[in-house]
């Protein structure tokens, strides 16, 4: 078990100002185990009293080597890894990987499966924003927000468990559609959630939006201009809070998003309060999408009948010989993908979640690269916190909404 390396100031010479080396300003580890870093993120802070002069993030404390591990598994088995990447957005990860595989092998998806994917991804977006709202309000000392938000999140997790049998690591979307059709109680559960949730959002807004304490802690803190955001590659609510209207669901619609009408909340102030407003508005819009998708939920098969890539239903196996052959071939060896590379991106609650997938003709992906939004959103954070107080740094970390599984992959 290796010993903890001794961190001397001189190997950081090129990063911190010379006042730190002389010992005038304080170098402090806001380290891997800290209540407000939302995971194992280490920030090396250069402090002059309470003012943050310089913030050097040090990531990698949750590096799980997912990209290397996915190269050793077949296309179907590799999907199990995707749930653990951004553990707040499991459905979204499944969706982006599954769409990449479908694009690579050119597989069609029946309309009912596409509508189910939209409903469950938007519910996952609401669940992810609820965790963000709960924990970042908790960081600003609003304890009750944490308990209210997790109460709603339990309803969504019950729906996921109803559908896929697992609360978080669902792996419900499969190449060519979804794993199996939704049970009968699914529509009633989602209808009930749609009925109660708008009142709950009004409860949150009543608690926080006009709250002078919350506004003092968030208005004008951590400002970010549109150009800087693009220059540092930030996407998602951070970019939209800085005035750039870029949302993949509108600009590059996928799995049928073009059929539903919803707005993209965009604000121009680009501070912590603007990001709060954008995300809360996004929760309302996501609920509208779920309602429209549920109303227009088409009947029909939930998985493509292209036997080359999709295992046949069990009923057919006892009857037809071809189905038995396809079943065994797919489950033992997996399906071969062409020797080419594609990039497919999805709008996750944190930004553009892209998958660069390269096949080599065999059943195993040759290279999988995950373009995760938190990796770039974390790069933007140091330029937002220069000159702020340490307490405001906590608010900015909350507003950036990073997930360490996303950053370290």
């Amino acid at each position, binding site marked *: 078990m290796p010993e903890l390396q*001794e961190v001397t100031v001189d190997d950081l010479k090129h990063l911190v100002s010379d006042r730190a080396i002389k010992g005038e300003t*304080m170098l402090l*580890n806001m*380290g*891997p185990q800290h209540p407000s870093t939302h995971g194992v993120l280490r920030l090396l802070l250069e402090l002059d009293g309470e003012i943050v002069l310089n913030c050097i993030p040090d990531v990698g404390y949750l590096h799980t080597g997912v990209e290397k591990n996915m190269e050793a598994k077949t296309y179907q088995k590799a999907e199990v890894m995707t749930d653990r990447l951004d553990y707040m957005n499991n459905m979204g990860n499944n969706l982006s990987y599954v769409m990449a595989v479908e694009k690579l092998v050119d597989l069609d998806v029946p309309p009912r499966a596409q509508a189910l994917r939209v409903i469950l991804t938007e519910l996952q977006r609401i669940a992810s924003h609820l965790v963000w709202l709960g924990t970042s309000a908790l960081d600003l000392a609003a304890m009750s927000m944490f308990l209210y938000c997790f109460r709603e999140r339990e309803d969504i997790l019950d729906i996921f468990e109803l559908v896929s049998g697992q609360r978080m690591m669902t792996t419900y979307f499969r190449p060519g559609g979804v794993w199996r059709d939704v049970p009968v109680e699914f529509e009633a559960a989602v209808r009930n959630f749609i009925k109660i949730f708008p009142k709950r959002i009004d409860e949150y807004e009543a608690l926080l939006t006009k709250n002078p304490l919350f506004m003092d802690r968030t208005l004008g803190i951590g400002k970010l201009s549109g150009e800087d955001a693009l220059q540092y590659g930030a996407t998602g609510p951070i970019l939209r809070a800085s005035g750039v209207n870029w949302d993949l669901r509108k600009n590059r619609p996928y799995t049928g998003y073009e059929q539903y009408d919803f707005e993209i909340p965009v604000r121009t102030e680009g501070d912590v309060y603007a990001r709060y407003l954008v995300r809360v508005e996004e929760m309302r819009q996501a609920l509208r999408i779920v309602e429209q998708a549920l109303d227009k939920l088409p009947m029909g098969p939930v998985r493509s009948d292209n036997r080359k890539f999709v295992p046949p239903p069990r009923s057919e196996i006892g009857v037809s010989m071809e189905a038995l052959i396809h079943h065994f071939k797919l489950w033992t060896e997996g399906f071969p993908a062409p020797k080419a590379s594609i990039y497919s991106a999805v709008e996750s609650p944190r930004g553009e979640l892209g998958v660069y997938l390269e096949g080599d003709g065999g059943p195993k992906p040759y290279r999988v690269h995950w373009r995760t939004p938190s990796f770039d959103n974390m790069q933007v954070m140091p330029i937002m916190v220069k000159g702020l107080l340490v307490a405001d740094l906590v608010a900015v970390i909350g507003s950036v909404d990073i997930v360490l599984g996303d950053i370290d992959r």
Partner: protein
Amino acid sequence: MLLQYVAIAILIALTTAVALIAILLGELFGPKRKSKIKAMPYESGMNPIGPGTRRMPVRFYLVAMLFILFDIEVVFFLPWAVVFRKLGLFGLIEMIVFIVILLVGYVYAWKKGALEWE
């Protein structure tokens, strides 16, 4: 005359007893395994950089002084609140004068920007 103070004496004795027992039990029955790493300062899991005791900026001292000043002011309210009825109007005016004097100091500190951090 002394009788009325017995209640307070019992209260003080009891509270110190409970406090001491809690510490004593912890000290007696708690296992003690000292180690160099356990004695090192905790810096969220990493090796602390630079000396622990270093020169602190003067603003902390300023904030501490202001706090002590206004805290003592509040302490003087307590005895006044106990005999508030008996003193009547005279006590009220006396306390208002006391507060006004400190209010001047407060406004002065505020305008000089002692409460701002920068």
